[in-house]
Structures are given as C-alpha cells and as structure tokens.
C-alpha cells in the first residue's frame, strides 16, 4: 500500500519515468495495454509524453463496445424493433452504428430502447411491466459477465419469465492469444487489464510468460499505476525475466473472484467461435447462455438476422484494435469519422482508442503534464 501512495507523488512519477529510460537504455520496446480503460487514462493524462520516446504503448482490443461486430448490433436492433419489447442497454452501445443506423436511431423510429446502469435495473423493469418483454443487451469482458450471471440466477429464482438476455460477453484470453499469434505485430510485453483480472485472477496469463516469454503486469487505472506497470515491465526485461506480476494489489487478488467465476460457470458456456471486429472469428472466445437458461436467452426467443456484416470499407478499426496502426493513421480519422458522426466503433466509446485520442490526444497532453507537474523524459544515454 505504501508504495502506491508514494507513487501518487508526482515527483516520484518523474523519477520512475527517468528510471524507465535508464533501464531500457534506448531500446525500442512495444507494450500493449489490453484494456480500454487504460487507453483512456493514457490519452487523458498524456502518459505517452511522460514516458521516454523509446517506449511505445500499443492499444489493444479491450473495449467491448469496439470489438462487437456490426452484425450483432443489427441483431440487437432487430430485437428492439420487435412488438412489445423493451430493449435495455448500457449507454455506451446506444450510438454504435449497425449497417442501418444505431440503437439511438431505432429509438427515434419508435422502438422502446432504454439505457440502464445495471442488468438488475433491466430485471426490475421486467417485474414492473409483466405484460412486456424486457431484453438486456449484455456486453463486456469478464468484469461485466458476472453481473449478467447473477441477474440470470435471480430471474430464475424469482421466476421472471418476461426477461431475457442478448448475450455478447467475450473473454480476454483468446483475444490476447490471437494477438500473440498475429504476424502483424511484435510486442515486448503487456499491461494487463485490472478489473478483468479482479475476476479471473492471475493464473490464466501464465501462458504469456511461460510459452511466449513475454512479461505481463496487471495494472490499476490511475496514471501513475500505468507508469509503475511500465517500470515493472522494463525491470523484467532488463533482468531477463518474463513473469505475471500484479501492480494492482489493492484490488486484484491472485485467485480472482471465485464467486463471480462460479456464477458465470453456472449460467454461461463458451461459444465454439465468435466474430471480433478487427480480429475475425476466434474460437472459444465468447459466452452464451447454458441450455438450462434457454428460457432467458433472447437469441432463442426472438428472430434475429444473424448475418455477418462487413465493416465500412473506409473504416480501419480492425487495424487500430490489433495495434497495427495508431488512431490518427486511419484514413478517415477526424475527418469523416468523429465522435459526433462515428463510422467505426473505436470512435464511439470513450474507451475506444480513436475517441480517446480525438478527445484528449491532440489538445490536452501539455496541460495534463503541467497539472501533474511531470516533465517529459528526455532520453539520455547512460543516466
């Protein structure tokens, strides 16, 4: 605990950044932050400017809104347009474009689309309107899947029959595997997702350290958490180690949240494969409801088109999500595609790399740096 406190001291942050420069000694290192929350922090606080220039942070596929393929958005909209349905969703999904508009457009056309804070709010709506069909659009990684699972268990216990889940939960490990196996990108390590790991624990990452010989450090969400995690990654590399380490000890227990994993296992099972925007079809990378919960499965209750829809040609979200290009290298970034008129998902969610860069990257790095009183690190050999 003490170390984290000291770490909130901006002078120390500056010293750590210098230490990263000394340890890495000019070597070009690419680290991927898997989680969209980290991407947001990195841009908001100008972390890339604080770190020495030889450290490159690559933004990964950990924004669930961003990786959901367009066909699934179309399916959601088809359910929302079904008679008598109240379609509930987290606010993040409202503006994500399908092939013919977004959920927000569907709402404007008369569909009863409501945003909710929690799946338990959706379940409450179902109890409140027993004559209507209430559907919850479940998205998210392992951080969010347990909340869907517990809600389902409660729906069954309370025998709420007019409630169902359109399940789009995805799992982080297959996505990391796909990135490690991709020939497009050479990475030197990972900044691991803090809140996903709070659920799944540290053990699932062992293959990254042992088979792929890459270090991974699970990180918290404050700017200094990320700088400290990069420091831990560089320390591992400079001493020839590749281990799974936990920087976010104040929240993440090594074993994860066992109760959450149990709830997920009781209610959901792996799909044989699932399409990810940018990464294509990945085997065993998403969850669906178990047959015992078929009654609450919106995919079985409603007709959905279930079609695969290609992304708009101009959109390069796929390459952004794999970290092959930076947001500003996309052909339509900031011109045809902006947060007001997004073409791709990465520009919709505040955790999407494009939206985060658009909002903060170009304008606020200098001011954030002065607020944090952190001077950019100038690379000096042999410090």
């Amino acid at each position, binding site marked *: *605990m003490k170390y*984290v*406190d000291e770490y*909130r001291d901006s002078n120390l942050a500056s010293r750590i950044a210098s230490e990263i420069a000394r340890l890495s000694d000019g070597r070009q290192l690419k680290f991927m932050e898997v*989680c*969209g*929350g980290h991407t*947001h*922090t990195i841009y*908001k606080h100008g972390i890339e400017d604080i770190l020495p220039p030889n450290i490159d942070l690559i933004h990964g596929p*950990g*924004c*669930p*809104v961003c990786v959901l393929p367009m066909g699934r958005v179309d399916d959601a909209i088809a359910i929302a347009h079904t008679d008598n349905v109240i379609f509930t969703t*987290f*606010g*993040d999904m409202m503006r994500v474009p399908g092939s013919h508009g977004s959920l927000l457009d569907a709402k404007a056309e008369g569909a009863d689309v409501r*945003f*909710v*804070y*929690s*799946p*338990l*709010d959706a379940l*409450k709506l179902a109890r409140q309107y027993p004559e209507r069909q209430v559907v919850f659009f479940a998205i*998210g*990684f392992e*951080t*969010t899947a*347990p*909340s869907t699972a*517990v809600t389902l268990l*409660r729906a069954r*216990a309370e025998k709420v029959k007019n409630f169902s889940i359109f399940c789009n939960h995805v799992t982080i490990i297959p996505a990391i595997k796909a990135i490690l196996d991709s020939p497009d990108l050479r990475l030197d390590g990972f900044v691991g*997702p*803090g*809140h*996903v790991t*709070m*659920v799944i624990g540290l053990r699932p990452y062992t293959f990254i350290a042992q088979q792929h010989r890459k270090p991974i450090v699970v990180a918290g*969400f*404050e700017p200094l958490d990320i700088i400290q995690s990069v420091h831990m990654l560089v320390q591992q590399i400079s001493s020839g180690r590749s281990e799974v380490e936990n920087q976010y000890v*104040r*929240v*993440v*227990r090594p074993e994860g*949240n*066992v*109760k*959450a994993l149990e*709830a997920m296992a009781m209610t959901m099972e792996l799909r044989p494969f699932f399409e990810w925007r940018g990464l294509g079809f990945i085997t065993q990378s998403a969850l669906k409801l178990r047959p015992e919960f078929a009654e609450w499965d919106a995919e079985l209750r409603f007709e959905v088109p279930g079609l695969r829809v290609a992304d708009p040609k101009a959109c390069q979200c796929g390459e952004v999500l794999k970290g092959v290009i930076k947001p500003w290298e996309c052909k339509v970034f900031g011109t045809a595609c902006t947060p007001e008129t997004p073409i791709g998902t990465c520009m919709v*969610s*505040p*955790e999407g790399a494009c939206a985060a860069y658009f*909002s903060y990257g170009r304008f606020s790095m200098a001011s954030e740096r002065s607020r944090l009183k952190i001077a950019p690190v100038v690379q000096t050999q042999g410090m």
Partner: protein
Amino acid sequence: MCLGIPGQIVEIVDERFDIAKVDVSGVKRNVSISLVRPEGIAVGDWVLVHVGFAMSKIDEHEARETQKALKLMGDPYTDEMAMFNKSQIE
C-alpha cells in the same frame, strides 16, 4: 466500460438476494453484494462497484484516493455517476 467506483456499505437491504445500499460520493443506491459475500461484508465496508455489483472489497484509504483519481477522469466518471444516480435496483 470496466470502470469501478468506490462506495461504502450503509445498509444491508435484502439478505435473500444480497442487496445492500452503498454511498458513492453522497449518492445512495442499492447494489448487489452477492459477489463479495464470501469475503464477509458489513455496514461500513468499502467496495468497488461496477454496473450495480460490488466486485471487490477495498480499504477506506484506497477508496478515497481512487475517488479523487476518478474525478480527474472527466466524462467517463461523470457519465458513470449519472447512470448510477438513475439506478433503481431493488
């Protein structure tokens, strides 16, 4: 999306469905404590809340520091609090 906001348990509301009232920066709403029950939860404890679920117990000092850091995040935190404010979990 994966944002966690710290709150303090002020009342256990429903033992059967593990619902407790938490205070997040002065806003009191119900959340599920089902996932942290095995850790042992009592009034006064601090938890990290995500989409209406307490996900992890945290110590008070960390909770307050995290709150400060979240406020600096801007929109994602403001949006999350607006949604939390709207929540009517029973």
